[in-house]
């Protein structure tokens, strides 16, 4: 166990960790928003709006994230758009996880009883008002644990950008191992770092589950 070598490489790993967290954070934020943008059209009564959105969601959910990131990374330059690997990763993550979240949102909204919608209607609320005041708050309570679970998956998926040269944790580990013999040490280090990331998010998920159970005691 060459700890000294490991310690000397720490700054690099901390930079890489920062990138991992950065991609995760931006990816999740964008995914939440993208998912919200998708549910409206997804649940539209007009099939010409609904169908393309469903097609996109199913395509993105049933194909490897790696290929989707490749499409962004190798495809955009064809149109003259050049963005960094970091943002390609963020876009790819937001696109796929946003689609998953849209389906989670949809499940939550549909689970809110039709009666609640009627009560809002009877009080003279417009569709938008009943969504905002009655349905979405209740849907959110139901789906909070599922959403934080998605965040755990997303943090793990940040590893995909190592394939396009972004120096996050996974690539940093790969590169360090190739340069030295400290295979064991590096693996243990990033294993621990990833476990810290995923388990702390997991704790948040567990906490939300408890909060949800308390809030929906009916």
């Amino acid at each position, binding site marked *: 166990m060459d700890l000294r070598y490991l310690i000397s490489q720490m700054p690099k790993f901390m930079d890489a960790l920062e990138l991992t967290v950065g991609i995760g954070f931006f990816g999740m934020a964008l995914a939440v928003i993208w998912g919200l943008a998708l549910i409206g059209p997804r649940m539209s009564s007009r099939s010409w709006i609904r169908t393309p959105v469903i097609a996109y969601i199913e395509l993105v959910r*049933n194909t*490897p994230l*790696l*290929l989707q990131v*490749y*499409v962004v990374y190798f*495809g955009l330059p*064809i149109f003259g758009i050049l963005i960094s690997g970091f943002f390609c990763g963020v876009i790819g993550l937001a696109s796929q996880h946003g689609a998953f979240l849209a389906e989670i949102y949809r499940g939550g909204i549909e689970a809110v009883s039709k009666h609640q919608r009627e009560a809002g209607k009877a009080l003279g609320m417009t569709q938008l008002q009943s969504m905002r005041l009655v349905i979405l708050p209740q849907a959110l309570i139901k789906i909070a644990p599922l959403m934080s679970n998605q965040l755990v998956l997303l943090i793990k998926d*940040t590893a995909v950008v190592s394939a396009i040269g972004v120096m996050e944790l996974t690539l940093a580990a790969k590169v360090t191992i190739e340069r030295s013999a400290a295979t064991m040490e590096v693996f243990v280090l990033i294993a621990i770092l990833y*476990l810290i990331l995923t388990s702390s998010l997991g704790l948040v998920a567990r906490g939300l589950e408890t909060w949800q159970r308390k809030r929906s005691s009916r």
Partner: protein
Amino acid sequence: MLDVFFANLPYLLKGMLITIEFAFGGIVVGTLLGVGLGILAVVFPSVVGKLIAVYVFVIRGIPVLVWMFMGYTGLGALISDFMAVLIVLILYTSAFVAEIARGAILSVHHGQIESAKSVGMRWPLMLRLVILPQAINISLPALVNNSIMIIKATAYVSVVGVWELSYAAREVVERTLAALDVFLGVMMMYFVICYPLAIIANRLEKRFAFQH
């Protein structure tokens, strides 16, 4: 538009074959292993159960790509690359299936176990006749969804350096620069396998919804 894709289709199809081998091996063996672990975790909750919980926690908490690097670098020195990443896929699958199986077994209604006990059944018989049949029904949608996840995960072996569909796709793109054609076409190849499974999972979920 997709002529580059179709021109290279034979090459890509060979890659798809390898992908299917990985997916099949990983899913079948991994699911069997996972079910076994899940049952053990329920029947012996104190020691074995805790060990399995740690196993599940560690495997699920680390990206599959990292596991593949570890497998490829570590095991890959001793056995072939193909076997190394296949073993990674099997173990990765088993961790998820263990959780699914454990959850499904535990969610079989308490009353079932009580009535089984009251007619004199003991654990092995109870498991075989009462619990597992119902647990299988309950867990089917999750197992199918899990399989979709594993099929998608096979793409990561290309990053480590093992040749299959995604690796072939990147080769073709780097040669022809027809990124959109080829990658979108290859995405459709994965889609054609995964989407039917997604529909099956959906139907299964609806069919067993009444159970809860």
